[in-house]
């Protein structure tokens, strides 16, 4: 049995070609899943009895909201690893995740507003779910701004990692906000412990879109981390060869 030496990939130079291949694969997978998911969500899934066609926003809103929280958790985990092991590739992964996490947060807020208007009669309310999701967006912005403000990348790694880890407290608040407070926002759409509240085809369409969003995030983040490796390791001897081979 052959075993893979995973520690090898903690080094940017060995990780770079792997990231190139993975980004391409996940990019194609994301595009294929998005086509299937859009077809299921916009064409196959029937009109909702209560909400009409306005509910079709769910196929981007819920996956985007899931990704906004999931990417923050992954980013914070990489921050923890980078602080604990002083590993610079982990910090680069966190740095690469932040803009995509912020983007999905913005999409969740935007599509939520456009869904809220027909469903509740308002684009925005300061209820617990929406407010904590907005705070998540500001946490991403704060993380990126702090990184940007510190010139030394290793110092920026440490300072922004602490900020990201403190911000983790917001994740359970977002997730449980619909239970802890009386929110305008509805409760969880999907639960592992109870039967689905929506038609099977709607659920399948939403899950396909969620996987598309996930694979998209992996592809974009791995591409961004390649750019970050080239930017930050510019003075290393191997970087010129890598740049040449990085098609």
């Amino acid at each position: 049995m052959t075993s893979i030496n995973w520690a090898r990939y903690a080094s940017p130079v060995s990780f770079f070609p792997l990231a190139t291949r993975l980004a391409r694969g996940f990019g194609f997978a994301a595009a294929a899943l998005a086509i299937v998911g859009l077809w299921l969500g916009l064409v196959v899934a029937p009109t909702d009895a209560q909400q009409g066609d306005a509910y079709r926003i769910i196929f981007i809103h819920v996956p985007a909201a899931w990704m906004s929280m999931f990417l923050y958790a992954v980013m914070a985990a990489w921050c923890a690893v980078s602080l604990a092991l002083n590993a610079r590739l982990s910090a680069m992964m966190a740095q690469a995740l932040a803009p995509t996490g912020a983007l999905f947060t913005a999409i969740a807020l935007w599509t939520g507003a456009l869904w809220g208007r027909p469903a509740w009669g308002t684009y925005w309310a300061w209820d617990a779910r929406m407010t904590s999701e907005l705070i998540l967006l500001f946490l991403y912005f704060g993380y990126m701004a702090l990184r940007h403000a510190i010139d030394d990348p290793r110092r920026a790694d440490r300072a922004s990692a602490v900020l990201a880890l403190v911000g983790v407290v917001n994740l359970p608040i977002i997730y449980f906000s619909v239970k802890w407070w009386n929110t305008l926002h509805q409760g969880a759409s999907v639960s592992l412990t109870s039967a689905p509240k929506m038609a099977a085809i709607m659920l399948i369409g939403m899950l396909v879109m969620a996987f598309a969003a996930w694979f998209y995030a992996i592809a974009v983040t791995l591409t961004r981390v390649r750019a970050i490796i080239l930017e930050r390791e510019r003075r290393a001897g191997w970087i010129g060869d890598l740049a040449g081979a990085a098609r």
Partner: protein
Amino acid sequence: MSEFLAMGGYGFYVWGAYAVTALLLAGEVAAVRTRLKNARRAAQSGEDER
């Protein structure tokens, strides 16, 4: 087709959500590609200086 675009009267909300999402994702992909291209160019020119 026009019925599909109308989305039962909710076209503005549904397409507003989908269109802005598509624009943002396309923008991010373009930005990341440009960043990688610039980083690659800078890294290669850095090698020439040595």
